[in-house]
Every structure is written in structure tokens, then in C-alpha cells.
């Protein structure tokens, strides 16, 4: 990864990159400070990116501080952009004319997203992409990705365990690392990335810089770990399907599905049928999640009536079933479900505990 394709430049080069992308007509979406949190939004200018503002993420806890620190996965994930929370599937007129909705698909650049989110897009490619979600495919087609590697993960990050960070390895157009406030290391990841970097004035990264980067990433990757390992994880979980831990956690879990909503890979949706006064009808797709009560409810029955069973499904889908279904884990270790769980439940601890029980069992 470090050989040859790492280039260094000042912060101003990053700004130039931003402006070049803008000049090429991309709508740029990146991290910005809004409503007291860092979230993804459309960026007009480079200065809107809140470099120098750090976030503090703990289970069920999020604050920002203007302390020169780093920010990590923002409230919104790329899912919000690629797979909107609410989408009209079609409208059917009184005379059964099917009207498909029209959407604007602009060339869009995700600027400064994190490696975990990049990995999440990779997963979406295998889920929404392969299953043929047209909205996703059209958004994806025109997506340019500039990813920022993490040298300071948060308490809730576990990308290193999930193998998705703290540095990105594939799937981006450009990756960069902020070594310090002024030095940026750039790396192209696609032909378009090479072309864009060609517009900047960079130098090959020096051995010192590379060494600093290596150390920083190593340190980061030591931090961004969960208390479990991926090795044999699916088997361990499947060996302990009846774990008491799920029942214990359901005492604290609210069944609110916040975790499902903020998860960058959760893809489940519900459909709402709305009749209109003019005799037409609309079908609307909305995000749903397996913690919802109605999720596994059927006319005259319920397959996961108890909250512990719904919680268990969430764990099993992400860490067991997903592999079979889509060839990867369904979790990228971004920590969102831990940060934004209003009950402060730490998914990592739940999994570690279930796994530990197998050893003890």
C-alpha cells in the first residue's frame, strides 16, 4: 500500500482537490457541523469541513469539542444518500397507469468519508447493487469517493476488528490521511483518482512520512478493536443461539430500532400503501429494521414476538447470516449503533459475552 503511490502535500492541496472536484461539476457531500453534531451534508466550500473539531463518542453518547481533535463516523452514513429513508416506488393512477418517480441523479462526490463507510458502500454494492435496487445503482454510477483514513479512532470504533479500517485499501477514487494539521498524504485508488491528483502539486511521500503514517495507523488499529475476534465468530454465535445474554440485554434494549436506522448497511424496508383522493395510489418504501415489533409479524401470528429474539436476529444477521447471503459480514465496525443507541448498549460487549459463554460452556 505504501509503495510508490503515496504522495504528500499541504492542506491547501486538499482544498485544491475539493475545488477541482467541484469544478468538474460534482455535488459534494461531506462532513459538516450542523445541529451540534457532525453529519453528512452538501458542502459549498472546503472550509465547511470541521477540521479541528473533535467528536467524543461513547456508548449512547455523542458530543463535539472544538479542541483540535478528530471526528469519526458522522451521524449520517452514505446509506442516507444512496438508499434514502423514504422513497416513492411508484404511483398508480385510477386507470392503472403506472407512474414511476423521477429523480435527479447528479454526479456526486463523497468527500472525506471514513474507511468504514467506504466498506459499507462495498457491502451495499453486494446487497442493493446485486439485488437490483435501481435508485441505488443510478446514484452509485456517478459516485466519486474520497476517503479519509483514520489515525485516531473513537472509543466506539472497531473497524480494525472488522477489517474495514482504519485505512482504506480498495474501492475509493482517492484516499488521504491527515498526518498532522498541515501534512496530507494522498493515494489514488482509481483512474479517475489518478487524473484528479494529477491536477495537484504533490511530492512522493518521504520515508519518514511513510513511517509516521505506518505507526499512526498501527496505533489506530490497535485501538479500533472489539473484545472479540472474527475468527470462528459465526460458529461461536451459532453454537450459542439460546444464550441468556440476549434475554439480559433485552431488559435494557428499547426496541426502538435506532441501531438499525443508523447502521450503514442495514437494508430492511417496509412498504406503505397510501390511497389518494383522486383514486390514485402510492407505494412508499421506508427504512425498517429487525428491532421493530412488526418486523416478523404476520396475519394471525408472530415469528419474533419477544424483544430478545429480535435483538438476537440483529446480531445473527450481521455476524452470521450475512456471510452466507452476501459474502461478507454485515457490520463494518463504524460504531454508530453503539453511539446512537439511546440505551447505550454496546453491541461489542454483547457479542463478546455470547462468545465467552461458549468457551465457558
Amino acid at each position: 500500500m505504501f509503495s510508490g503511490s503515496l504522495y504528500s502535500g499541504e492542506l491547501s492541496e486538499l482544498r485544491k482537490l475539493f475545488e477541482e472536484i467541484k469544478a468538474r461539476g460534482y455535488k459534494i457531500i461531506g462532513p459538516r457541523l450542523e445541529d451540534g453534531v457532525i453529519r453528512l451534508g452538501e458542502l459549498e466550500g472546503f472550509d465547511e469541513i470541521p477540521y479541528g473539531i473533535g467528536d467524543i463518542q461513547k456508548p449512547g453518547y455523542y458530543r463535539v469539542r472544538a479542541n483540535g481533535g478528530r471526528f469519526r463516523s458522522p451521524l449520517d452514513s452514505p446509506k442516507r444518500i444512496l438508499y434514502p429513508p423514504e422513497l416513492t416506488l411508484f404511483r398508480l393512477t385510477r386507470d392503472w397507469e403506472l407512474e414511476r418517480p423521477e429523480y435527479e441523479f447528479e454526479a456526486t462526490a463523497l468527500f472525506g468519508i471514513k474507511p468504514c463507510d467506504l466498506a459499507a458502500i462495498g457491502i451495499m454494492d453486494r446487497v442493493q447493487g446485486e439485488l437490483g435496487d435501481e435508485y441505488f445503482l443510478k446514484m452509485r454510477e456517478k459516485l466519486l469517493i474520497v476517503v479519509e483514513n483514520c489515525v485516531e479512532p473513537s472509543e466506539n470504533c472497531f473497524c480494525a476488528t472488522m477489517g474495514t479500517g482504519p485505512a482504506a485499501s480498495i474501492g475509493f477514487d482517492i484516499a488521504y490521511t491527515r498526518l498532522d494539521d498541515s501534512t496530507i498524504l494522498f493515494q489514488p485508488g482509481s483512474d479517475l483518482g489518478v487524473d484528479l491528483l494529477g491536477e495537484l502539486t504533490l511530492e512522493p511521500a518521504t520515508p519518514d512520512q511513510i513511517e509516521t503514517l505506518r505507526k499512526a495507523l498501527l496505533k489506530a488499529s490497535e485501538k479500533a478493536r472489539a473484545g472479540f475476534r472474527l475468527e470462528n465468530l459465526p460458529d461461536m454465535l451459532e453454537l450459542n443461539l439460546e444464550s441468556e445474554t440476549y434475554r439480559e440485554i433485552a431488559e435494557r434494549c428499547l426496541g426502538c430500532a435506532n441501531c438499525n436506522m443508523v447502521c450503514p448497511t442495514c437494508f430492511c424496508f417496509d412498504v406503505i400503501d397510501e390511497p389518494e383522493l383522486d383514486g390514485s395510489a402510492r407505494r412508499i418504501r421506508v427504512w425498517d429494521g429487525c428491532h421493530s415489533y412488526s418486523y416478523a409479524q404476520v396475519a394471525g401470528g408472530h415469528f419474533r414476538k419477544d424483544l430478545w429474539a429480535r435483538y438476537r436476529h440483529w446480531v445473527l444477521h450481521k455476524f452470521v447470516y450475512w456471510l452466507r447471503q452476501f459474502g461478507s459480514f454485515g457490520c463494518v465496525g463504524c460504531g454508530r449503533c453503539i453511539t446512537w443507541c439511546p440505551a447505550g448498549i454496546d453491541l461489542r460487549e454483547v457479542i463478546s459475552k455470547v462468545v465467552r459463554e461458549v468457551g465457558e460452556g
Partner: protein
Amino acid sequence: MSGEKNKVRLAVFKLTSCSGCQQQIIDLGDQLLALLDRIEIAYFLEASSDAKPGPYDVALVEGSVSTPHEEELVKKIRENSRIVVSVGSCATYGGIQALRNWMDFEEVKKAVYEKPELIEALEKSRPVSDFIDVDYAIGGCPANKLQLLSVLKQVLIGRRVYQRGEGLCQECKRKGNVCVVVAKGQPCLGPITREGCGALCPSYGRGCYGCFGPMVDPQPGALARRFEDLGLSREEAALRIRSITSWSEPVRRFLEKYER
């Protein structure tokens, strides 16, 4: 409004309430006008003095049952109507006035009236469904007009009315709000409250106070525990949860245990 053949006959009744839910019907504005093509407003005292007798196809009932007279009235409404919809948190859960259900009624009367013996009211303010079968129930203080419209539209095409009934958090997250519990440490009833308002409070930066009533399968115990983590005393946590829809079944059952 004449020659109303083939129109759905709608009646709007008010029991103990603030009239805010009826407002939602009037607030439908243009959509209300569009509805009038399909609906005959047969009884709606707030909008028309032309009160026509039943039977009605659809009765929207606002307000809780809190007097003997209202107890009689709801029974008549039931007899006279094909579909009865309880509209709003008063009709559906007993309303804000059910906060007095938690107190000694004699004390309550004395606190407000000089001659409490003249007060003609039931000891408790209760939901309409305690007295009659209700076909559909819409919570909300006030009910959300779009939700109300959606119910009317569903009734108009003759389908069974469907409401998701999931938690407010989902709506809140879809909308892209910042969670006030996580980002501000504020207590919020969103995790046990039913979606439908548009996650209003959190989008105004404050915790939900539960005006839409409990979601399906709520977990008030887990939420109270979380409130305590956030630094509220048990009493304060209970007070938060004992809010506008305190008399809804799940909340009441929980509080009865929690406050003991």
C-alpha cells in the same frame, strides 16, 4: 351541502377535550374541500350548525369520557355509527386530564372548585374504548392531520385501516434528527412513543413528551432505567413518563409497578 347520495356520512363528536383534534379536520384546508366531494359532514358542531341525525358511516370521536353524560353519549354514538374512530390522545388514552386519575379525586375537586359537591364528573377520565368498541384509534395531542386524512382516505376506499404503530425513533432517524438523549443527555420518550407526529420535538431540539401514546410493545422499564442513568431520580423519571398519555395501558401498568 345537499343531494348527498352515495357520500360517506361523517360525524364529529366532542367529549372532554380541548377541541384541538377537531381543529385538525378544519386545518386540512384544501384537502378538506377535496374530501367534501366524497364525504357529507352530517354532524360537526364546530363547523356547521346543521346537525343531521344518524346513522353515520363514520364517527370521529374527540375527547375522553369523563362525565356520566359522556358515557351515555358514546354508547349512542356506537349504536348510530358504522365505524367509530377515536381521534387523539384524549379519546384514545384518556388524555391529559387523566393526570388526575393518579390523584385523590376529592382532593382534586376541592383544589379547583369551591363547591366540589356540585361537580358532575366521573372519578377517572378514560378512553372511549373503555366503554365501547372502537374500530380504529389515532393517538396524538393533537392527532396529526395527515394521519387523520390517511385514515379517512383508507376508510373511503373501504379498506381496513393500517397504522404501523412503530416507535418514534424510527421516524426521527428517517427524518435525520439528532438524538437528544445521545447528543444532549436529555430524557426523551421517543423510544416508547408511537410514530406519527413527524418526530416534532426532537426536530426542535427537545425530548419527546409522549403525546402520541405508546408504540407497539413499548419498553418503559428500560427507558426509566436509562433516565436514571442520565441522572434523574426515580421520582423524576416516573414524572416524565407520567405525561399526556399516562393512562394508556402499557404506561399505566408500568407506572403502577415502578412507583411502588
